[in-house]
């Protein structure tokens, strides 16, 4: 990815300072990505199929680096957000269809994060029906008051509680030889739940919204092509962290359930069950530790997702957006943002709503929408009018198209197995 000259330059003090200044978009987007839906998906994967889905995360990490590298390049070279580029390169109809799909998917993702909030409230024995509405109002207020940027770092720090999964995985003494094999040797089961979970793992780790969010962050930060190498490093660190946490959650839940002779393969249906995987490190307090992490991750994602959705859609249609504008100047922005928060909170408050199912389903939708967005990105990143000398090389294109074919094949297999179960 880097030339020799670029590699040499990385280590000077000045360059280190520049790297630290650039640091942010890649790490933040990958941290936010480890949200309630992600935790649920990894937990279900480990509990139900042991290490058998670990290879999916290995491939996903590779895909994530390829995709995010293109996002970084598109952002720094064009100086425009992804939605703006899609609108300017493709027709209004295509843009409208993509935005509609994104709105639907992000709504499902926001619901998933509110479900995470509800699940974490239950872990603290707080009834969601009473405590969820004020939390929704708090999230809305947090962003509209413009204090979001200030609390962003706090949320990020609290989300680090998921490092407990890493410690827990080690304490559970998994068979590291088996883990190593599962990471590199694909095992495929032609059964619908397995395929759905495979797509869901990809969908939860490479969510379409994060591509829009990361590119907008890069543009907001004013990064140009000269900072490309640092932004690539920022992204690589973020990807390694996100994939690492995902893998350790799978390992942890696999050890706690699938490979535990007293439990065996199960489908996790509640926050308590997912928290049980943390028992080796947190003991009786496992559910509180899990609940605390889930609460902060859900709060963080539940505030970012509606915000980035409103920004993306407004950017695509050219509507004024931003919390620094009053409602009269940016009505579409506020309506989309408010509707997503209120709608998500209402859906989650419906009695007997299967929350874990909702959280996993939203990630499946991500997996289905992802190839569409990536194909648009491929066309954009190969457009010399936009990218100049920064278009994809032939080798990069080969790898990226192969990745898209794999994504489409996994999606097709999932759809086929849904309609024609074995």
């Amino acid at each position: 990815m880097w030339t020799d000259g670029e590699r040499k330059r990385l280590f000077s003090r000045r360059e280190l300072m520049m790297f630290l200044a650039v640091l942010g978009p890649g790490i933040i987007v990958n941290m936010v990505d480890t949200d309630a839906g992600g935790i649920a998906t990894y937990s279900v994967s480990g509990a139900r199929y042991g290490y058998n889905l670990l290879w999916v995360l290995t491939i996903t990490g590779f895909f994530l680096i390829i995709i995010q590298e293109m996002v970084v390049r598109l952002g720094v070279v064009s100086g425009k957000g992804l939605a703006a580029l899609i609108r300017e390169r493709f027709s209004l109809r295509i843009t409208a269809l993509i935005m509609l799909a994104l709105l639907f998917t992000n709504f499902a993702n926001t619901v998933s994060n509110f479900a995470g909030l509800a699940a974490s409230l239950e872990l603290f024995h707080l009834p969601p029906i009473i405590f969820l509405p004020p939390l929704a109002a708090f999230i809305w207020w947090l962003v509209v008051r413009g204090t979001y940027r200030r609390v962003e770092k706090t949320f990020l720090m609290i989300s680090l509680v998921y490092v407990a999964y890493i410690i827990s995985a080690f304490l559970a003494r998994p068979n590291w030889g088996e883990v190593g094999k599962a990471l590199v040797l694909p095992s495929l089961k032609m059964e619908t739940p397995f395929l759905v979970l495979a797509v869901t793992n990809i969908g939860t780790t490479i969510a379409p919204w994060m591509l829009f969010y990361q590119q907008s962050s890069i543009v907001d930060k004013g990064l140009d092509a000269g900072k490309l190498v640092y932004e690539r490093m920022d992204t690589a660190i973020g990807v390694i962290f996100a994939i690492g946490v995902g893998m350790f959650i799978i390992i942890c839940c696999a050890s706690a359930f699938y490979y535990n002779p007293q439990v065996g393969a199960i489908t996790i249906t509640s926050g308590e069950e997912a928290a049980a995987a943390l028992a080796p490190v947190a003991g009786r307090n496992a559910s509180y530790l899990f609940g605390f992490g889930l609460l902060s991750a859900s709060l963080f994602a539940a505030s970012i997702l509606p915000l980035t959705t409103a920004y993306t859609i407004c950017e695509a249609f050219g509507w004024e957006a931003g919390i620094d504008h009053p409602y009269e100047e940016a009505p579409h922005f506020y309506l989309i943002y408010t509707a997503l928060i209120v709608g998500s909170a209402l859906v989650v408050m419906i009695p007997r709503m299967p929350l874990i199912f909702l959280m996993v389903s939203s990630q499946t939708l991500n997996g289905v929408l992802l190839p569409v967005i990536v194909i648009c990105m491929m066309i954009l990143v190969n457009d010399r009018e936009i990218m100049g000398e920064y278009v994809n090389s032939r080798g990069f294109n080969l790898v990226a198209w192969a990745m898209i074919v794999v994504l489409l094949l996994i999606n097709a297999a999932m759809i086929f197995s849904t309609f024609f179960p074995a």
Partner: protein
Amino acid sequence: MVGGEFINLLSLVKREVCDSRSRLIGHLQDLAVELRESPPRITDIAVHLGWTDKVGDIHLPRPVEGITLLLPWSEVETWDPEAFHLRSEHPDFPVRSSEGKVLLRRDVLNKQILDEEGNRLHRVDDVLLRREGLLLFLEGLQVGAEWLPLGKRFNEILARLRKRYGRGRAENGAQLVPYQAIVRIDEEAIVIRSRL
């Protein structure tokens, strides 16, 4: 509104282009407009040729495929809902440089519209043109539709523009920013008159 047949840019893009021997040689990709004239006149037609081995007077060492050339509008002998018919025979076309020209699809369509205060209003959803005989003129920028609502602020600006320039709604529930309201076309956005 003045007389003439109204036509949208999007309905012209990809329309077939034939040479003087009625051979299909490519399709219409873009139109260049002269904004200093009133009303702005379409001055050039950008044609995406299937192939060519000659650009203007220059003979190429080998044929190239998929090239877009800008030809003067005077090259258009006639046009109908099916195709544009050119006066010259492929590949002997008089070509023009696109330097400094405003191309409607490249520089206007889908672009961000800003008011004079720099507020984002909407993007250009289509471009409305008016046909008078063989000539084409820019009528305005089409925005919104029944399923694509405009903001209150933009609606107020459009109402003021309607009052000032007497141009009303386009088809399909869309509205029109008349060409007189265009202040300038930048690389990033189109600025329209909002202080009336």
